[in-house]
């Protein structure tokens, strides 16, 4: 790999475009925008790209691209590298028992990144039946850390005790 290519790769992985990503949903949206930009590169005698930056992508994407342009990178190469970089990310599926805020997503992402490294994208879903906790699926491996599972396990072990307590309560209530 040439020094320039290495520098480009480093530039891509350090890019705001990549660092901004937290979820699979965001990455798909960014990939759509990159495709639009790539298609606009040779339109309108070179003016198409500028037009697309102004009108077809989100402002933070525009800013990130302009920052890269200021470094003098080959835009087509850069955008393709970003696409490749995103494709290399691993998907971490997490089912949550609540609908997360942006802050919640940030916290979860940071924690996951600390465990599985930088190249992670969250695929979050909402399942109120979990009660609390979460279910994690990573590279086809499934782990249930939900409160529902823990509760059911505990409930199964102590069902006789619970039933007896319930009956005692009923009797005392009747007395």
């Amino acid at each position, binding site marked *: 790999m040439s020094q320039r290519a290495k520098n480009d790769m480093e530039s891509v992985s350090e890019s705001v475009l990549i660092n901004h990503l937290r979820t699979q949903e965001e990455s798909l949206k960014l990939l759509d925008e990159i495709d639009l930009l790539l298609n606009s590169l040779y339109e309108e005698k070179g003016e198409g790209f500028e037009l697309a930056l102004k009108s077809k992508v989100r402002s933070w994407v525009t800013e990130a691209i302009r920052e890269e342009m200021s470094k003098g990178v080959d835009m087509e190469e850069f955008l393709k590298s970003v696409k490749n970089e995103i494709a290399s990310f*691993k998907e971490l599926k*997490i089912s*949550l*028992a*609540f609908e*997360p*805020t942006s802050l*919640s997503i940030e*916290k*979860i992402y940071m*924690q*996951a990144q600390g*465990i*599985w*490294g930088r190249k992670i994208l969250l695929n979050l879903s909402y399942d*109120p039946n979990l*009660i*609390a*906790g*979460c279910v*994690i699926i*990573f*590279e086809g*491996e499934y*782990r249930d*850390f939900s*409160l*529902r599972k823990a*509760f*059911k396990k505990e*409930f199964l072990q102590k*069902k006789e005790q*619970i*039933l007896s307590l*319930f009956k005692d309560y009923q009797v005392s209530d009747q007395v």
Partner: protein
Amino acid sequence: MDLTLTYLIILTFVSLILFLLALLIIYLRLIAKYLKLKEESEKSLKEERKKYEDSFRDAQKIVGAARIKAIDIIKNAEEFNKDQLAKISEVLDQSSQLSLKSYQEALKNIQDEMGKVLLSVPNNINNSIVSAIQSFSFSLQNQFTNAQKKMLEDFTNLYKSSEADIENYKRERLKVLDSLILKVIEEVSLRVLGKEISVEEHEKLVLKALEEAKRKNALEDR
């Protein structure tokens, strides 16, 4: 003379023919009557058979209904308790004692009457008759007591068997009820838990779950 004889012969012959004709008519009528009677008899037999079959069917229905009723009664025997059994036993006892008493009284009357009659017969015959009557009376009394015991025993067995059936049924129903109660407690507890947990607590639990995954080396990066 010859002519008279000839006339006589002809008259006798004609009379004989008339007699035979009369006999034939009577015979034919008899045959017709016999056939009619036979037909009526067959018809009546058929009707009787039909009636018998209907009665048999009705009897079967009655027996079936009685059986169902008996099963119901056995099922409802849950209401039976030991006190009631004791009461029934007591009533049976009283009833048998009463019957025995009235029977003994009747027997005594007969003996008295018989005694009067027997005074007129020789002593040895009198003694044998009295002894036979006493023996019969004793045997009857024994049979009566045995029948009473058997009846009580059968009744107790029936009660015990019904009681066991009811106990089994109760046990099964309680099992089903227990599992339903557990299901309801579980559902309600989960629902209440879900409502009581705040977003911050949810976050903490998710972060803890991720830590747990790391600690257990589960889902490690490959």
